[in-house]
């Protein structure tokens, strides 16, 4: 018999993907040609063998390693979701989860609104907190919008505040002298914080104003803590920082600020992208 079936035809046949027009000829040939029938059987056996091989198993303890690598990233995912939520909140009425309301501090600052005030804020934020100015990249400085100045300043400020809080939370409750250093930093941060909160309120940045307001209370509390603070009081302060999720929220807004700064810079020409997998 001439014109035996090709391997390609047999493979398509195996997977049921023979073109409809070719199907009758193929079936007829297989029924009448021993050689092609044998080739077909061998192909079936090979492919069945592939199926019969047990799957490659992961090493012992794999699940534990997966979790160790995964868990920190879950928090980042949560941060992204919260950032989106706070962005939504900004657009509408700012509903506020209850919390540290007892230290509500009525703003007495009367800064004029607009760019001038925001530039002052950015300047103050840098100077007061760290002795360094907040510097926008030169080409962008001229075109910087009030929002961008605020975002840059707040992002910077939150990073510093976060560092301070982390140090405080991780401080050994027996080493009370560590608190003195944090107190000095806290009072510096309070001043910058107030200015920024005011600016955020004026520019309608509800989410930023919210977090800054909460921060202000904590910073004040740290700054005003008595010099003879007991280790119990310190651990009480630490636990409130943790249970109020304050650090977490600071991280959320700081990351949002970084994102906004990036978005500002990229000026809307960012291509839609898939999640990198590799």
């Amino acid at each position, binding site marked *: 018999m001439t014109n035996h079936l090709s391997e390609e035809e047999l493979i398509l046949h195996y997977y049921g993907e023979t073109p409809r027009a070719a199907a009758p000829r193929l079936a007829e040939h297989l029924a009448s040609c021993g050689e092609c029938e044998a080739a077909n059987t061998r192909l079936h056996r090979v492919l069945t063998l592939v199926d019969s091989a047990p799957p490659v198993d992961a090493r012992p303890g794999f*699940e534990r390693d997966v*979790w160790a690598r995964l868990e920190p990233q879950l928090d980042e995912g949560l941060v992204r979701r919260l950032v989106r939520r706070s962005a939504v909140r900004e657009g509408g009425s700012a509903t506020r989860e209850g919390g540290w309301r007892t230290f509500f501090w009525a703003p007495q600052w009367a800064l004029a609104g607009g760019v001038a005030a925001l530039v002052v804020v950015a300047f103050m934020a840098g100077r007061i907190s760290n002795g360094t100015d907040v510097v926008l990249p030169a080409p962008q400085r001229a075109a910087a919008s009030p929002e961008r100045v605020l975002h840059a300043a707040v992002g910077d400020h939150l990073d510093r505040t976060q560092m301070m809080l982390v140090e405080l939370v991780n401080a050994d409750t027996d080493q009370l002298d560590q608190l003195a250093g944090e107190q000095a930093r806290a009072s510096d941060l309070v001043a910058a914080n107030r200015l920024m909160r005011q600016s955020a309120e004026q520019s309608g940045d509800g989410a930023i104003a919210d977090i800054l307001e909460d921060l202000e209370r904590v910073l004040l509390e740290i700054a005003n803590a008595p010099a003879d603070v007991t280790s119990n009081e310190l651990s009480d302060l630490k636990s409130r920082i943790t249970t109020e999720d304050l650090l977490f929220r600071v991280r959320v807004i700081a990351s949002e600020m970084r994102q906004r700064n990036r978005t500002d810079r990229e000026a809307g020409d960012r291509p839609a992208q898939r999640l990198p997998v590799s």
Partner: protein
Amino acid sequence: MEERDPSVVARARDGDRDAFRALVDLHSRYIYSLAHRMTGNAQDAEDVVQEAWLKAHKQLARFEARADFRTWLHRITVNCSIDLIRSRRHREDAHDPADLEQGPLSERGADTQPTPERVAASVQISDRVQQALGLLTALERAAFTLRHVEGMSIEEVGEQLGMKTSATKHSIFRAVRKMRTALEPFVES
């Protein structure tokens, strides 16, 4: 596989970290095998497992309570494998396919954990199958696996991998030919 405890999924969906961890413990081994079959090496399989869990975590709210969790996770894992393979496609196009092979066979078998219940013969055959699969390029392997194991049509495989149907067909043909050459001695009496 039927989810043994649907309440675990429900709790994980409500943000219970321990419940999510229980799911990770329960299903990671399964999706690792799946990812390994798709990608052909341990490192990529582990990366796919991570990515699949991240996606699952993010999309958990959209998971239908009545659906089977493992089936859902299976789909996510296949998609993550495809993403990884696609992201590397240009490399395979531009380089010798050998670049994408996974190194020496001795290394490749390293993550195959023999279990007591596996008899010697079947270990030998499974090694042989793994070796044969190791002869495939990443694209051949992915196309073959999607067609042969996942049961996608050749056209669907092409769509998933971003290839023309004819190119997909030829990837599968090459894959099967390599498998046949390597495994035929085992099936002839």
